[in-house]
């Protein structure tokens, strides 16, 4: 195939809680919206990759969309499920096998913390019995050490959350769209120190669909060309610190941050796209907790470890800053339906690149809107997926 893989249509079912509508139905809603956006009919779709962690088999949605015999492959890959679906869809077009397909993701989780069982993670039962099968413990312990090593304040964690809810006011698909004052965030009950309840995202519901096409097909459809310049997915390196870890390796020099799947996926994506962090105009970074956004700014190469304190004080990650981050409020304001979450980031980036962001629209370096957009997810047991879009 010559040219880039392009995103020609996007659709989203609002995130949050939608009683009486299944995860699959939310996925179907997103697909129909994306088809209309692209101006194509379901029978034209040659293939689909569908991601869901806890809401049933994605391919069952052909009942609702039409029994066209379409190739439909289900993807279950933890928090990287959506990114993996998108990577796979991209490869199906790059290979020359197809020129029009869909990556769709949806989920519907019960309220409260994710309820993982030890056996699912190759851990002994006692690890759950003593109360350590709790994701928030890991996220809190990771930022606690990072704060001590690099001088990040709890106030900065609050500023990330405050920005998320403020940005979400302008994102119709977001869940928590009421601005929350910084003091209220900082003074709220602690869930797992140093995080208060506003600094963690919640499991949620939602669906996202992206229609991908070869560049030739995209030109035929007459859509603005949003090029997928890179889509990478990577697993963890040695010595990394991950969720559900009864032990962590000792290392000789523990004064520097450890390697992560995010660092590897990010470096690979920049390499494939042939650009660097300074060239990115807007970024969606995994923010399942406020500190994750801070650490991921460095893990994705946008700043040095410890510089985040100054970046936030100067508003560099605000909508009007040099690198707006999580322009729709991210996971903190949208919640995390696992299968849909990574694709939501790409949806938001397409909206931004098209200039359709309304009150949250990024102006870009020359005031003519962003030209490049970056997305990043991270999750258990040490997986990460990154995309870079360009118009």
């Amino acid at each position, binding site marked *: 195939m010559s040219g880039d893989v392009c995103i020609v249509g996007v659709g989203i079912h609002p995130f949050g809680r939608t009683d009486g509508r299944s995860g699959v139905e939310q996925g179907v809603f997103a697909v129909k919206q994306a088809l209309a956006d692209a101006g194509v009919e379901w029978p034209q779709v040659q293939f689909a990759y569908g991601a869901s962690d806890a809401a049933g088999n994605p391919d069952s949605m052909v009942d609702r969309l039409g029994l066209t015999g379409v190739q439909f492959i289900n993807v279950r890959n933890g928090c990287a499920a959506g990114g993996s679906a998108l990577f796979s869809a991209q490869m199906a077009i790059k290979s020359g096998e197809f020129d029009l397909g869909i990556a769709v993701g949806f989920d519907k989780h019960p309220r409260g*913390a994710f309820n993982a069982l030890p056996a699912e993670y190759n851990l002994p039962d*006692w690890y759950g019995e*003593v109360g350590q099968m709790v994701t928030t413990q890991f996220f*809190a312990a990771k930022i*606690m050490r990072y704060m001590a090593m690099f001088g990040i304040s709890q106030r900065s964690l609050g500023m990330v959350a405050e920005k998320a809810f403020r940005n979400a006011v302008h994102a119709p698909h977001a869940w928590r769209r009421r601005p929350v004052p910084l003091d209220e965030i900082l003074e709220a009950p*602690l869930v*797992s120190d140093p995080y208060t309840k506003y600094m963690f995202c919640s499991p949620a519901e939602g669906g996202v669909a992206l229609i991908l096409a070869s560049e030739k097909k995209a030109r035929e459809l007459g859509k603005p060309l949003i090029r997928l310049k890179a889509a990478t997915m990577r697993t963890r390196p040695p010595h990394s610190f991950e969720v559900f870890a009864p*032990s962590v*390796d000792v290392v000789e020099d523990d004064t520097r941050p450890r390697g992560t799947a995010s660092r590897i996926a990010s470096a690979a994506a920049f390499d494939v796209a042939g650009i660097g962090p300074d060239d990115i105009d807007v970024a969606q970074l995994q923010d399942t907790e406020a500190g994750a956004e801070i650490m991921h700014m460095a893990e994705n190469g946008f700043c040095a470890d410890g510089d985040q304190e100054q970046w936030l004080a100067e508003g560099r990650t605000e909508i009007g800053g040099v690198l707006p981050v999580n322009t729709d409020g991210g996971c903190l304001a949208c919640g995390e339906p696992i299968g849909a979450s990574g694709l939501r980031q790409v949806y938001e980036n397409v909206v931004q690149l098209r200039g359709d962001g309304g009150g949250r629209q990024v102006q870009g370096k020359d005031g003519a809107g962003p030209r490049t957009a970056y997305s990043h997810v991270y999750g258990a047991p040490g997986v990460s997926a990154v995309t870079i879009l360009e118009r």
Partner: protein
Amino acid sequence: MRAIAEGLLTDEQPPRLIGGRERETGRIVYPCPPGDTCEPVPLGREGRLWSYTIQRFRPKTPPYAGPEAFLPWVIAYVELPGEVIVEAPLVGVAFEDVKIGMPVRFTTIALDPDAADPVAMPAFEPIAAGDAA
């Protein structure tokens, strides 16, 4: 008090944690996994706090098997020098006195002290100044 699981603690009094030394690489992991890739090794008793948080809500049951009545606890990662960093509660310290780098010592606590047949689980406690072994 019996241990919460076989192969987790040594039989001596007081017990030590049992880790697993990978036969091929020498890397130490905890707990010692089943199978023959690792050789069980007793871990050191003393280390330093590597990181921590405070568990402020009762974890979901299942899998949590602790008491119904909930009190927050410190969950710690402790670096046992030259061996491995292990995860366990830190007891016997006020939350505001917990500091990364503080010296701590291995101990065991009851998962539910009021249970009819309480089980012992791994934990750490601070080493007071002047109390070094």
